[in-house]
């Protein structure tokens, strides 16, 4: 009897266990070739038609209720990798770390519809991602692969003028983009005055750009967040990669420190124009009539080491150092202009339990520029600097199968050196110093919940509390975030989002063009934080499992926008904020994107139709002058239409052809409408043609369009891989406007004595293009 009872009890318990097991599956998904964690990899449970994605550290956690089987299937997938199906035993807690293999080259992998499904199912909208492997296929300027410039080919991310890396996302200024590299802020992501970005594609693992629907963990900028993650380094074997191009060379070395446990990566690049110009200058050193050629170079270095301290702990240390140097010297003067970023990051990942994961980060960031000039007996130095020290902790808690919480807290200490000027004579009889130093503390705390309300309806709601203190001024505010997704069918999802953002730092720029001499300035008692509210609605369609079509509409309100009074004195001004004017703005538009990721031919088409206005500016100084008054005007970057068509065709395993065609409405320019004669006082300077400017940005330049073509020829020598990349930028030699200038047009006239001279007839406008058709070639290698 007892035996029957216990047998029955055991069976009952077993049946109950079958029916009522709650299972938490967690782990890390990695690249099988090099041990890199994979961000956004899909973890899918077919029997339950549910799944999740790995977070930015490759970690995932999913809880299944009432599992009535003894084992379940778990499918892992990621773009560019072979899917992997695992069968795991059902237990309350299961740890499943997976390494995915590629097996074949990127272009040959049939991309399963799962990657589209994740876009459909995610509440994330207004977000663009770019894989560095894709970026390397797309033709680029002078053969320099640039992930930040390539992402500008996606819809809704128009660039500044040709050659510039300034981003003007959904009507926002270029300073309203938060750019983070391994969680450290990059304040100026440009080399060579904006021609190239500071990101070495060989060192980048992932880039994600948010245009709206900002998750609650992000704050500090109004218009976009560009989150760049560096590679961790190959944990399995030592390898290297590099390239030799027309203007720079690069080398990346990575490998295990202890196999499968720790690794390092070092990646650097440098231009070599200056080596050529220095040689020419040296050869002309004895020629008094020879003109010295200015020297210019840039370099950057990314380093990272990481350690798997245990199954639950990982430590990362990474750093970036980049610099641009321009110099010009002669017998009479010595001019140097340098600028650059330096960042450092230390991160500790800890898994408390299968559901709770944390990341604690300390970052350091330093951006500065310095101009020095020495003339006979006199010298000056101008500069500006911003330094940050940041500490934050982020938590990821897979509460249950319906709720995933993210929460965290962080603080940043900012140090500003604004408008530093030191000038004086060598003998000390003339000496001048100016500049302002500020300190500020910025805080942020947030909580967000991704809630599966039903199988079709998911909501991601969050709240961020941010604050900023400077001297005796304290600003704070709540930033609600909300995103929702409704799965209309398995192939159609509807999305909506709302986000409030606040920005406590402002870029002081003397012109519409982003320059390395632009100054970062804190909010103060007179300069309130900028604020934006953005709503967006959209739909995503999966078409025949091959195409992804998205369409979004947005409206953004902008408040406390910073601009400057007419003829603002931004140089060496101790009271810089007296030159500010504060106003409002708004922008709205629609973005369409059609994407194909599968097959031999892949790529996307993007179109943006948008309007942007700014106005109602009031000078901080009551005596200041803002010519537009309270009128609303279009900023220079108000681009009405923006089209991009990108295609990559794998002709054979060794040969890939790629092309990109972009079209954009021309930038706006502020041209004078009248001219007057200004006489001046005795001894002054008369102006026969003094321009009179009235309404801002009254002229639209011609539309910008350009076709870029690229061919990549792969080789497989014994020592590794190499490829020859041939690009033709501006294939049909379109002369796009880089800038416009006005000058007199002269006609010849003759005196009665027959002497011919030139007389000005009229003022003409001349458009200057940056480059014509531009072929380039580069050689890249991997060993």
């Amino acid at each position, binding site marked *: 009897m007892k035996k029957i009872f216990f047998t029955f009890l055991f069976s009952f318990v077993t049946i109950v266990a079958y029916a009522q097991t709650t299972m938490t599956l967690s782990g890390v998904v990695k690249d099988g070739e090099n041990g890199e964690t994979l961000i956004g990899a899909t973890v899918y449970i077919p029997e339950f038609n549910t799944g999740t994605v790995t977070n930015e550290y490759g970690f995932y956690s999913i809880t299944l209720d009432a599992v009535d089987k003894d084992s379940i299937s778990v499918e892992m997938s990621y773009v560019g990798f072979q899917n992997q199906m695992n069968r795991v035993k059902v237990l309350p807690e299961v740890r499943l770390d997976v390494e995915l293999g590629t097996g074949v080259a990127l272009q040959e992998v049939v991309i399963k519809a799962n990657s589209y499904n994740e876009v459909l199912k995610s509440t994330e909208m207004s977000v663009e991602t770019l894989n560095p492997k894709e970026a390397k296929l797309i033709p680029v300027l002078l053969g320099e692969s640039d992930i930040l410039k390539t992402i500008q080919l996606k819809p809704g991310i128009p660039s500044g003028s040709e050659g510039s890396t300034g981003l003007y996302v959904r009507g926002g200024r270029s300073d309203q983009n938060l750019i983070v590299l391994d969680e450290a802020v990059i304040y100026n992501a440009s080399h060579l005055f904006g021609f190239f970005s500071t990101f070495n594609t060989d060192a980048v693992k992932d880039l994600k750009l948010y245009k709206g629907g900002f998750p609650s963990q992000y704050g500090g900028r109004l218009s976009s967040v560009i989150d760049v993650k560096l590679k961790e380094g190959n944990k399995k074997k030592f390898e290297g990669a590099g390239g030799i191009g027309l203007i720079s060379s690069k080398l990346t070395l990575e490998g295990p420190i202890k196999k499968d446990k720790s690794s390092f990566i070092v990646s650097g690049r440098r231009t070599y124009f200056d080596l050529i110009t220095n040689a020419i200058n040296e050869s002309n050193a004895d020629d008094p009539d020879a003109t010295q050629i200015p020297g210019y170079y840039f370099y950057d270095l990314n380093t990272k080491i990481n350690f798997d301290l245990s199954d639950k702990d990982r430590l990362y240390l990474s750093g970036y150092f980049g610099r641009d140097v321009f110099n010009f010297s002669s017998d009479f003067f010595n001019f140097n202009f340098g600028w650059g970023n330096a960042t450092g990051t230390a991160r500790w990942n800890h898994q408390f339990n299968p559901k709770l994961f944390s990341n604690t980060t300390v970052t350091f960031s330093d951006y500065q520029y310095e101009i020095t000039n020495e003339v*006979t007996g006199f010298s000056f130095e101008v500069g500006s600097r911003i330094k940050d020290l940041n500490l934050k902790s982020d938590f990821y808690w897979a509460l249950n199968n319906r709720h995933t919480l993210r929460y965290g807290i962080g603080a940043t200490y900012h140090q500003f050196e604004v408008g530093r000027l030191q000038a004086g004579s060598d003998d000390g009889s003339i000496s001048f110093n100016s500049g302002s130093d500020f300190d500020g503390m910025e805080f942020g705390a947030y909580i967000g919940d991704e809630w599966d309300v039903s199988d079709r309806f998911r909501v991601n709601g969050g709240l961020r509390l941010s604050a900023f203190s400077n001297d005796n001024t304290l600003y704070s505010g709540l930033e609600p975030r909300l995103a929702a997704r409704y799965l209309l069918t398995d192939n159609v999802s509807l999305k909506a989002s709302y986000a409030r953002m606040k920005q406590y730092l402002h870029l002081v720029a003397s012109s519409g063009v982003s320059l390395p001499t632009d100054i970062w300035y804190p909010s103060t008692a007179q300069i309130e934080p900028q604020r934006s509210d953005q709503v967006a609605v959209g739909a995503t369609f999966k078409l025949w499992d091959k195409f992804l079509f998205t369409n979004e509409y947005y409206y953004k309100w902008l408040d406390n926008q910073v601009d400057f009074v007419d003829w603002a004195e931004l140089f060496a001004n101790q009271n810089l904020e007296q030159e500010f004017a504060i106003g409002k703005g708004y922008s709205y538009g629609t973005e369409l994107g059609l994407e194909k990721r599968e097959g031999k031919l892949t790529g996307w088409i993007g179109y943006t139709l948008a309007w942007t206005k700014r106005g109602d500016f009031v000078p901080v100084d009551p005596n200041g002058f803002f010519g537009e008054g309270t009128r609303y005007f279009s900023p220079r970057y108000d681009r009405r239409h923006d089209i991009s068509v990108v295609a990559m065709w794998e002709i054979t395993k060794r040969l890939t052809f790629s092309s990109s065609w972009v079209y954009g409405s021309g930038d706006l320019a502020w041209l004078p*409408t009248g001219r*007057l004669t200004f006489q001046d006082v005795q001894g002054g300077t008369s102006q026969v043609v003094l321009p009179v400017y009235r309404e801002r940005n009254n002229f639209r330049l011609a539309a910008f369009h350009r076709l870029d073509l690229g061919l990549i020829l792969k080789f497989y020598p014994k020592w590794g891989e190499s490829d020859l990349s041939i690009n033709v930028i501006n294939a049909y030699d379109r002369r796009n406007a880089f800038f416009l200038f006005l000058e007199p047009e002269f006609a010849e006239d003759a005196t009665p004595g027959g002497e011919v001279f030139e007389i*000005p007839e009229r003022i*003409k406008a*001349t458009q200057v293009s940056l480059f014509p058709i531009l072929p380039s070639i580069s050689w890249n290698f991997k060993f």
Partner: protein
Amino acid sequence: MKKKFNYIYLFAVLAVLVSCDLNQEIEIELPEYTPQITVECYVQNGKPFNLLLTKSVGYFDPLVLDPQEYLEQILVNDAQVSVVVENETYELVNGAFLDPTSFTLNNYASSELVNFDPGTDLALEVKLADGTVLSANTSIVEPLEIDSISIEFNEVQTDMARCLIFGDDNDPEVNYVRRMLHDGSLDSLVIDFVATDEFTEGDRFVFGSDYSFERGDTVINTLIHINKEYYDFYQSVQGAAFVNGNPFGQPGQLISNIEGEGNPIGIFTSISVDTTFTIVPE
């Protein structure tokens, strides 16, 4: 092989040819421009009221080079101009008034000489032929003098000298000045800027130059005490002149103190001028 090389060479030449000339002229279409009345009037004790009244033209309109035609195009000679000072009205008559020393031209002037105490308010009124009334206000500035000059020679290049000028800045209020430096004659302007003493300490001012004067050169220092309206206006004029033709300059509107309909531009202000001539010792 030779044929292949020729093709490559030809391609390179063609590439260079098509690559040349990145400039191209473009047509500018802007809304029709309505001329704006421009006033220049610098009130100086010891001189009559002199005013230049002109009008602007479209920026891209053809340039008129004949001086007669040019003046006819820009001068406004049918207005009534007056200045009110302490309830007394001074009429400025229309004519062609050319100062033989400064070669400045004005088309309205008074017969009376200006002689008012610092701080005296002045009000300008210009009635145009179409009935539009323009107005502006200013006040007489305190005199500000250069009380000493120093010539210093370079220790290395001993034949090169610089010039320093000094003066008292006792006024606790913010002062605005325009500092000019000429080399040899008033046609050779070397330094010209406006400045404020708002951020300097002490009650002395000093302005200098670099070591660019040779022995025997004539150094002409001019210090003009100005009002804030002129400081703002002249900065905007310098800015507009700098931006003219400069594609990377940031434009702005001229900061004028002339009020009235039709967006008038210009300056009505008081100035006090001190000019010194110094010869660098041999």
